[in-house]
């Protein structure tokens, strides 16, 4: 047999420490209560064992005080578990603002990972140590799940919408990446490795491989090919709303509702524009469902994200694409 007998997983992200702390709290509480019950059962079973075949137990009915005691104490212990778990969960749900964004597409049975600068990886992910990394993920077919035990992060990856996770690696090394939502025949081998590198090594790796330009550049090209630029002009005078500064802003819809222009909103507005109509515009954008694939959608979203807000905007979509925030931030760490 190979592999030895590991009893505890490696800890390689800032989150791992917090998850393990909560784990040890729960382990402590449950060991205490389990051992208490075990000891009581053993002591009672021996001390009060039947000594004569016609012996019966003492006629004790119950005790209100005890009942209240053993409802209230477990309740309080549970509320600590709830509060601790919930606050940790909220921290996991909110990626830090300057996180480096990587796009992930899962399909039966492989992971495609796209860096914003253009590098594409299959079943491998290279990231620098000490940087916040945000993964925006979707699936081409069934539900998958992106799971890196050493980082203690996991999220289902669904068709038709985006989910995201974030982590900050703390230790260079190679860590397992698993699919942990059953997805068919080769579910067990739909995995790979996350390689955490020193920043300098990561820069070398990034500049090493061939690249077709950044994701936003590819998106800008696609934006023109699909003739999106005919209507979505930056001046705001076109048939469609301007997309400059749209990403992350609050959009007013027909009927008075508002929505945050996040990845899922943009995705829906491209694939099925009639779902939500921006106030003041007509529902005449064509449906792109079936015309763009998941990778192209991510390129378009990266492009829209790259369109800086008006004060800094040059008005030229291509020029704006180059000021994609993560790229300079990556270099800062060298």
């Amino acid at each position, binding site marked *: *047999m*190979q*592999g030895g007998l*590991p009893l*505890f997983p490696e800890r390689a992200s800032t989150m791992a420490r917090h*998850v393990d702390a*909560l*784990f040890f709290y*729960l382990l402590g509480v449950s060991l205490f209560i*389990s051992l208490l*019950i*075990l000891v*009581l*059962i053993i002591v*009672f*079973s021996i001390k*009060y*064992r*039947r*000594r004569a*075949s*016609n012996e*019966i*137990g003492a*006629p*004790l009915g119950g005790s209100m005080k*005890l*009942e209240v005691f*053993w*409802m209230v104490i*477990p*309740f309080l212990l*549970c*509320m600590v*578990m*709830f509060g601790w*778990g*919930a606050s*940790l*969960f909220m921290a*996991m749900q909110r990626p830090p603002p300057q996180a480096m964004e990587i796009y992930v597409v899962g399909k039966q049975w492989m992971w495609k990972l796209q860096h914003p600068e253009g590098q594409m990886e299959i079943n491998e992910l290279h990231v620098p140590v000490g940087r916040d990394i945000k993964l925006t993920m979707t699936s081409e*077919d*069934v*539900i998958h*799940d992106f*799971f890196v035990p050493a980082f203690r992060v996991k999220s*289902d990856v*669904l*068709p038709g*919408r985006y989910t995201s996770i974030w982590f900050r690696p703390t230790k260079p090394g190679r860590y*397992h990446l*698993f699919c*942990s939502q*059953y*997805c*068919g025949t*080769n*579910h*067990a*081998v739909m995995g790979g490795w996350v390689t955490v590198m020193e920043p300098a090594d990561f820069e070398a790796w990034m500049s090493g491989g061939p690249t077709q330009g950044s994701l936003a550049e590819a998106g800008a090209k696609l934006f023109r090919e699909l003739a999106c630029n005919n209507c979505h002009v930056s001046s705001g005078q076109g048939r469609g709303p301007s997309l400059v500064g749209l990403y992350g802003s609050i959009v007013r819809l027909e009927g008075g509702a508002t929505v945050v222009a996040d990845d899922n909103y943009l995705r829906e507005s491209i694939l099925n524009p009639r779902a939500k109509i921006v106030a003041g515009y007509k529902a005449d954008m064509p449906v792109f469902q079936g015309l763009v694939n998941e990778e192209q959608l991510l390129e378009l979203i990266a492009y829209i994200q790259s369109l800086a807000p008006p004060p800094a905007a040059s008005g030229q979509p291509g020029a704006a694409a180059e000021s994609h925030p993560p790229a300079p931030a990556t270099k800062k760490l060298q």
Partner: protein
Amino acid sequence: MSSPATAPALRRETYLNVSFGVKSWLLTTDHKRIALLYLVSITLFFFLGGFFAVLIRLHLLTPEGSLVTAETYNKLFTMHGVVMIFFFLIPSIPAVLGNFLIPLMIGAKDLAFPRLNLASWYIFNLAALFTLYTVITGGVDTGWTFYTPYSSLYSNTHVVPTIVGIFFAGFSSILTGLNFIVTIHTMRAPGMTWFRLPLFVWTHYATSLIMVLGTPVVAITLTLVAVERIFHLAIFNPALGGDPLLFQHLFWFYSHPAVYIMVLPAMGVTTELITAFARKKLFGYHFVAAASLGIAVIGFFVWAHHMFVAGLSPYAAMIFSILSYLVAIPSAVKVFNWTATLYKGSVSWATPMLYGLGFIGLFVMGGMTGLFLAALGLDVHVHDTYFVVAHFHYIMVGGAVMGYLGGLHYWWPKISGRLYPEALARFAAIVLFVGFNLTFFPQFILGYLGMPRRYHAYPPEFQVLNVLSTAGASILGVGYLLPMFYLVWSMRYGPIAGSNPWPATGLEWQTPSPPPPHNFDRTPVVTWEPYDFAGRADLQYPVPRPEPQMFQPAAHD
């Protein structure tokens, strides 16, 4: 066999000898005979599901998988889950022990709808035939959870026949639940008030509510999967505007309460065992009874804790996390009250008690690890890993199956009229307990290390723990085979039991073993509180003599 002519007066009429022949069994409306029919059906399914488990554990002996292909492995764990959950665990205690005992315990002649009871057995077997059909023709590979869109669009295995099987099995479950509810409401003997009911009846009442209210939802949900598969309607398919998460909400709305269908009856059995073998009133009767209903009600509002990493809104996740903690409280109340019942009791170490105490131990471990899974930030790490597999096996096998076997031993003298071999039975109970822990405890560690469930192959560092688990499973297997052999043996060769061998306080022990066809020769009138050993002059204890002990001289002779 002696002919009736030689000794007509000695031959007492029982439900077993009142008529003979295949027809007298297949057309019976006697709840006791139907219980035995169920016993045969679910025992077959238990060993079929167990056979799949054996293949799974053998396959996982090596990291690359040593026995079958990936496709076959996926079918094995799916069929293991489908068979064990829908065709063994859900019917196990209610349809066998509940069917046999509820009328006896409340002093009734039969269930309220005897023909419906027989119909539910036939429906169950019809469903079972569909399931066997899928096994023989190649199986199904979606997991017992049938997650869409895999099940509705991508799997090319026998999804629809399996769904049809589960759909029909659901009707059998609904009919059984309905029958129990009406029976418990309307057919209690004079003096058998609600708070004189044994806890076994209370837990079956709670279980029946879940069966009647929850089962239609899973039937509709699985029908929707079949409809999407056959007619390509857009229900769960996101490409056509459907929502795959809708399936998970609907599925778990039944399938989480279904866990309580499995474990509540086992809690009822355990309560009977603890009181009978400590010869003591149940500590906090009203609290334990209320906890049963509490679990059934709150259990309907915790379903989305199966979906914390599925893309749920974080605020919804918080609500379901806090509700999941609330459902833990009534379970804790039960455990504390059982433990307190032992205090100053007269504790016997007979086989059923070993199962009862084993149940408490394993249920505590299963319940405690459930708290880990309800903690949102921690669930993210352990969700869909072997930690979950270990957790629910502690509840459903450690809990429900231990309860079932404990109950089967305890009421075996009533069912068969004979006693099982005590020493062998104690040995089997201990083998089961050890084998169970050896099988499933390593899986907690595997889960925290990060091994995902439903993997036909795994990284080499997980091998030692997997081998340990398989070794444990082989011990567990022996533990399951032993009772089957000696219980069958005892039906013919076991010592005659008498009507109340333990003795215990329930009404079922007031009538001869095996009971007459209509349960009681005279309708009993109940004037006593439940489990009140001290207040019952009618109980006949064995002649006092010292139990075999090393250091205690005979004190009472």
